[in-house]
């Protein structure tokens, strides 16, 4: 199924959980990340449980230089 991650479309397994998504964009280390799906934060404690839906708009963020 197709989802959008950080503005790019990706084909992913329909049984994917939120925890599987960073690997799709080649980010192995889950530390320091935050994930929002369709404009809502998904708490880290739920990453393993929350399923990803078809057409989901995902943002995977990290801290960078700023401010």
């Amino acid at each position: 199924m197709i989802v959008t991650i950080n503005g790019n479309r990706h084909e992913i397994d329909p049984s994917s959980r939120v925890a599987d998504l960073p690997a799709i964009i080649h980010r192995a280390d889950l530390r320091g990340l935050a994930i929002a799906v369709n404009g809502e934060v998904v708490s880290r404690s739920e990453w393993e449980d929350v399923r990803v839906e078809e057409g989901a708009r995902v943002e995977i963020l990290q801290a960078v230089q700023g401010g």
Partner: protein
Amino acid sequence: MEKFEVAGRVFASRLIFGTGGFTSLEVLARALEASGAEMATVAMRRVDPSSKGSVLGVLDEAGCDVLPNTAGCFTARDAVLTAHLAREALGTNWIKLEVIGDDRTLFPDGTELLTAARQLIEDGFVVLPYTSDDPVLARRLEDAGCAAVMPLGSPIGSGSGIRNPYNIAIITERASVPVILDAGIGTASDAAIAMELGCDGVLVASSIARAKDPVRMAEAIKSAVDAGRLAFEAGRIPRRLYAEPSTQTDGMPEL
């Protein structure tokens, strides 16, 4: 010197370090050390696997606290969401709240800022809002429960110092929470002036990051913050229109 406390955390340094604008993590690390800062800001952006090194790594190694910001947000909704994401990613309740109203001046949108602040305070955040030099807005933010207020001196990155020192003085005189001058500092004297106006601290980014010698400028601004605060605590002489002789007039010889 009197201690600097924000939301129950006591800081030895009154300088908060902005990590934006450095082109090299190595220079950032050395400038951070030279500044003596104990807290530094970061922004939240999309993961980019091709980027090397990490600002968090630098801050961690320096033992520096992380203050995430909501840089780039123009609405309360986006700022609130970004703050929640930052809390998830970094495990801190502290947030430097920026809600921008204009993309040329980068001045805050007061209405959206206040809305976001109120929501985030309800959500348990320690909110440090980047605000204008309007004493009314500063009071509203304080009343809403912000842990500090951070008025700008002049536009972000403009290096134009403190355009309205009178408003800043009014803010510092009336505030019951720490006042941290945030944005527009260009060089050491601006930081000293901020402290002399009664600010409890300063947040600097571009003045250091984009200086010709960032490490040296970090050292300069550190000294300026110390000097300005000492001067403030020492109680300056007033500005007079006329002279006030410094030498006694009695005992003058008739020559």
